[in-house]
């Protein structure tokens, strides 16, 4: 790892001072002699420690310790910093869009030799995200977040609304609802979660980052994304939908009391609704996302994560073996579904088994997961780049301004700014950038 003279000097004096005080610190690197391989695993999925216990019982020679983390944009920086100091954990949970950043930061090891043909267990579109389109394999997919349309079945009936099959119908539904009940809204355009917008653009066919040769090509301001931005900007401008952010106490209340009738979300929405809108249990239904082209069913993805092996890991084979078990073994996946409430990325696990029953919140829709599996198959390919964090950060600011202004053209301007900031950042860092 890069170690500058200054840092060495500083560290040496720090170490000297500390050892003078006769204090012993515990180094974190595991012994690589005989005895079991000790692996640490940074993850945020709830119940991951329980799943790891199953493994530890069966595999006395590979012991995995889960260290629970808070998820979020800053976790990527925390991992990058740890890796810089040579202290990265052996295994990390990472979101798909963070993979290029982590690979570029030299955190993740190529485990293509260790995982062999594990790729067959996953849909091609998902697998391509962990290989970054190369021959390398940087992580194993754990869960995925195919996007869906959630709506209040009871209120849709009350207002005589149809479940929209296309985005055009979605807009009409929003207007119709406003006409009948001006104090309600179909949904809101939220500027505080970039993942949702990215998923919607993905559905429309956008490819935000692509490579040609040794160069990155940024396509944030492409025709597909512009279509999406204009669509939502238009709805906000005419007042057909709300413009306030999601996940605030006010949003929870709006969901709970039926002020908002629908939510464009992903397969994990039932869990969120359980906490955000507990009074609406059994009143929601799930349908495929509205389409741009009704003849070609597509969906985007929002959320989902992978298991990667770090370059600091002393036992990459053991770590890859665990990661493969965790994300492809039926017993492990069943435990992940039960303990962590995740939606597995492995195709075989998406139906039956632990997912035979619908989520408790959606007991009224017995075929919830059958339908979800159908929708998951239509997931459009995703294309992430090494500075998703920059693009996402700019999204929040620029689209926040746009949503506040309630002007459709502000949405187009915001998209341009987001594109420009992303390209500028790549150029500044020295990446090869095409046109």
């Amino acid at each position, binding site marked *: 790892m890069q170690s500058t003279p200054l840092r060495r000097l500083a560290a040496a004096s720090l170490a000297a001072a500390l050892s003078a005080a006769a204090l012993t610190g515990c180094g974190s690197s595991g012994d690589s002699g005989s005895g079991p391989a000790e692996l640490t695993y940074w993850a945020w999925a709830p119940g991951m420690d329980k799943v790891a216990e199953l493994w530890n019982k069966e595999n006395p020679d590979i012991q995995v310790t889960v260290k*629970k983390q808070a998820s979020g944009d800053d976790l990527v920086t925390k991992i990058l910093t740890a890796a810089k100091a040579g202290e990265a954990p052996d295994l990390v949970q990472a979101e798909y869009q963070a993979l290029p950043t982590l690979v570029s930061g030299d955190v993740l090891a190529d485990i293509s030799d260790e995982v062999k043909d594990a790729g067959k267990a996953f849909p091609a579109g998902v697998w391509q995200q962990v290989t970054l389109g190369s021959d390398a394999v940087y992580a194993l997919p754990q869960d995925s977040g195919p996007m869906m349309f959630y709506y209040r079945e009871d209120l849709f009936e009350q207002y005589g609304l149809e479940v929209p099959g296309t985005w055009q119908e979605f807009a009409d539904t929003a207007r119709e609802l406003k006409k009948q009940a001006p104090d309600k809204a179909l949904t809101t355009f939220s500027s505080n979660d970039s993942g949702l917008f990215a998923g919607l653009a993905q559905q429309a066919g956008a490819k935000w980052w692509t490579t040609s040769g040794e160069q990155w090509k940024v396509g944030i301001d492409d025709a597909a994304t512009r279509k999406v931005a204009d669509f939502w900007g238009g709805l906000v401008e005419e007042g057909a939908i709300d413009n306030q952010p999601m996940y605030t106490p006010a949003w929870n209340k709006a969901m709970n009391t039926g002020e908002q009738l629908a939510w464009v979300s992903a397969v994990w929405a039932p869990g969120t609704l359980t906490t955000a809108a507990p009074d609406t249990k059994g009143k929601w239904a799930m349908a495929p996302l509205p389409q741009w082209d009704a003849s070609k069913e597509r969906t985007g993805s929002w959320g989902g994560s992978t298991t990667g092996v770090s370059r600091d890991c002393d036992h990459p084979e053991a770590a890859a073996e665990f990661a493969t078990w965790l994300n492809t073994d039926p017993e492990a996946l069943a435990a992940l579904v039960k303990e962590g409430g995740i939606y597995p990325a492995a195709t075989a696990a998406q139906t039956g088994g632990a997912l035979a029953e619908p989520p408790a919140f959606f007991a009224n829709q017995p075929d919830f997961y059958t339908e979800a599996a159908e929708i998951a198959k239509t997931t459009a390919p995703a294309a992430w780049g090494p500075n998703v964090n920059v693009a996402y950060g700019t999204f929040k600011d620029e689209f926040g301004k746009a949503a506040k202004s309630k002007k459709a053209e502000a949405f187009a301007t915001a998209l341009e700014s987001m594109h420009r900031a992303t390209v500028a950042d790549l150029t500044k860092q020295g990446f090869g950038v095409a046109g």
Partner: protein
Amino acid sequence: MSATVAPGPRDTRYPPGARAGSPVSRPAGARRRPGRLVPTAVLLLGAVYCLLPVAWVLVAATKSGRELFSTFTFLPGSGFADNLTDLSAYRDGVYWRWMANSAFYSGLGALLSTAVSALSGYTLAVHRFRGREAVFNVLLAGVLMPPVILAVPQYLLMAEAGLADSYLSVLLPSILSPYGVYLARIYAAAAVPADLVEASRMDGAGEWRIFRAIALPMMLPGLVTVFLFQFVAVWNNFLLPYIMLGDDEKFPVTLGLYTLLQQGSNTPALYTLVITGALLAIVPLIALFLLIQRFWSLDLLSGAVKS
């Protein structure tokens, strides 16, 4: 950079007309009454302003997840016992471990910090030596660099010293507090008379003994304040442990609560647990505050001058 405000020896500190040592006598009773009511009224007003939001935490902790977002803000709920059980059950009671960790970081950190602040503050206030102002200004300048940017270099240095992800990595950087040194200097200047120190020297007392046996007791109420501030500061510190620690068994309670809030996109935040946890996390601070209040009622100067 030789600016100081902190008072040196106390000769110039009293405004004219305010001489200590005048005979004490009963003042006229006529002015007493309004003088007592107004302050209390003003204080109560402030108390209400400050307590209203805290009351929210109290009320919200009694609400079940269902009630939290549906019933009126200040209407108590029915789920406190359940919330408490759930919190204790979460990851086999890791919450209590976080509390213990916080108590350790804050207790030991604040104690050491107070000791260092007292010694430094006393020295800067009472001793005259070459470079005094420079030392003071340099220590103060430590607060100029935003902690946000110091966390990463601190982590990298700790990692090279083999201390990343250890209790020490959080404890050690918390010990020195420029604010504490500054406060201790002010209190020492106010409470420790220079002539008393001089007199003790004449009597042949060593410098350490003067500090330990004479100055320290006089500074006590001020030091108690420093301890309180440091305790709260370490208790609520977030960024340093966030960067330093990877092992949630070593997390302090603030960081633990943060992991409950940021569960990842597919899992909702555990609001009820967070709020209940936050309420419980305030309780030790209240207890500490009540304990420390007793020291403030001591007169700083009584006792010492007479001896």
